[in-house]
């Protein structure tokens, strides 16, 4: 498990982390992938699309269910992980690393309502019982 101290999390089980000044990477959490099971297919936005914090930007489909993806941030999609589209199992194998989904150019700070790693862990624990 990578060091997640710089990651922030949503209550809808996405993570976000600043990759460069003004640019963040977004993915789904380890908890989310373990709940979903084997990911079969990802529906991701196109390059240049705008995403809005708290709204749907795509979907992840596993053997068990299809779940919507909600963006932790607002901004423009500047990269989409082509590798994960071709090999969705990367989301299961390395959700916080190689299984990243999109890279977004953001204006200003991250939304204040995102959770830090410890807060997300206790939220996810409570969520699974």
């Amino acid at each position, binding site marked *: 498990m990578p060091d997640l101290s710089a990651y922030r999390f949503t209550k809808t089980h996405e993570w976000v982390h600043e990759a460069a000044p003004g640019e963040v990477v977004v993915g789904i959490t380890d908890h989310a992938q373990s709940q979903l*099971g*084997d990911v*079969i*297919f990802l529906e991701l936005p196109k390059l240049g699309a705008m995403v809005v914090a708290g709204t749907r930007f795509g*979907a992840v489909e596993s*053997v*068990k*269910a*299809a779940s919507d993806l909600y963006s932790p941030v607002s901004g423009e999609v500047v990269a989409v992980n082509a590798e994960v589209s071709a090999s969705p*199992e990367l989301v299961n194998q390395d959700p916080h690393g190689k299984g990243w989904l999109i890279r977004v150019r953001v204006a200003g700070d991250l939304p204040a309502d995102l959770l830090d790693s410890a807060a997300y862990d206790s939220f996810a624990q409570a969520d699974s019982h």
Partner: protein
Amino acid sequence: MTGGIKNVALDQVHRALGGQMVPFAGYSMPLHYGSIRGEHVAVRERAGLFDVSHMGEVNVTGPGALDFLQRLVTNDVSKLTPGRALYTVMCHSDGGIVDDLLVYRDQDDFMCVVNAARRDVDLEWMRRCLAGYDAKIEDVSDKIVLLAVQGPQATRIVQSLSRDQDLASIRYYHHRFGQVAGVAVRVSRTGYTGEDGFELYASAGEAERLWSELLEAGTQHGLVAAGLGARDTLRLEAGFRLYGQDIDEKGDPLSAGLGWVVKPAKGLFVGSEALAAIAAAPPRAFIGMKLGPREIPRHGHPIYQGSRQIGEVTSGSFGFTVGAGLAMGYVEPGKAEPGTELRIQLRADPQQWAVAPVVPLPFYKRPES
């Protein structure tokens, strides 16, 4: 633990193996031990070990047992010689399916294996039908552990634990009593995966010993513990109906494509008159449909021909071996011919269409060995 959910004898064993436990039919059961895909592929290529102890077992004994079963189920139990197993359904008098089940015969006694979620309903129905027959039924579900070893390596693995039996000589849908890992078991050449394999019935007290010996002996042949998730994707590829999804009390076996287990020639049975009427014009047809590799149909998705809804998906998932989204479901009669171009609406979004041609069932057939 939620009230009313029962644990199987191997509950702690599943948890120790990392099984993700989910409530299923009143039992806490392992959905998977890490990856449904990995377990599915292991069963197709090597072997998988399933705990399916939630299934119900009901003994039917007494001089009138055969006559009672002939009346109760749709298939012809008189053809069931000792040592064989028979797949059948039992119906209400209107032809609605009470449950699908396996019937085993041992000389004059029988054992019925029923779905966990239907066990109580089945027992009540069987007791009602019992009037006038010199037979006894006994629910022995809680005393029996049922383990399934499935996959091309299954025979080799189970044989390595059995000195008193030549398991390869047990034919498909036959069974025999023997010792496996020193445990007295009913060894049945049956399964719900589309692969060769065995289902082993043993006393619940022997569950841990049987499970751990099979897992240990199987590891060198690539056997893995497999959960209900893989069981579901495997049975879907094999075209097996699942009670509660593909078949239920509102549907009849003929519309479900299970006409091969309905034997009117054997004489009267519960539902025989209704089924004879339905046979003349079944109200709907059961079909398989194959989608693309990125299109996953689900239970309840509507099936369209052109702009008109003509049916609904009852089972849908991704077929890991077939490499495509697979659906089974009902459509209007006359729309079931393989090659018929249908469409399935995926999710709630009306823009999410998948082209879904009708294909013959099963989706997957194991290679001849």
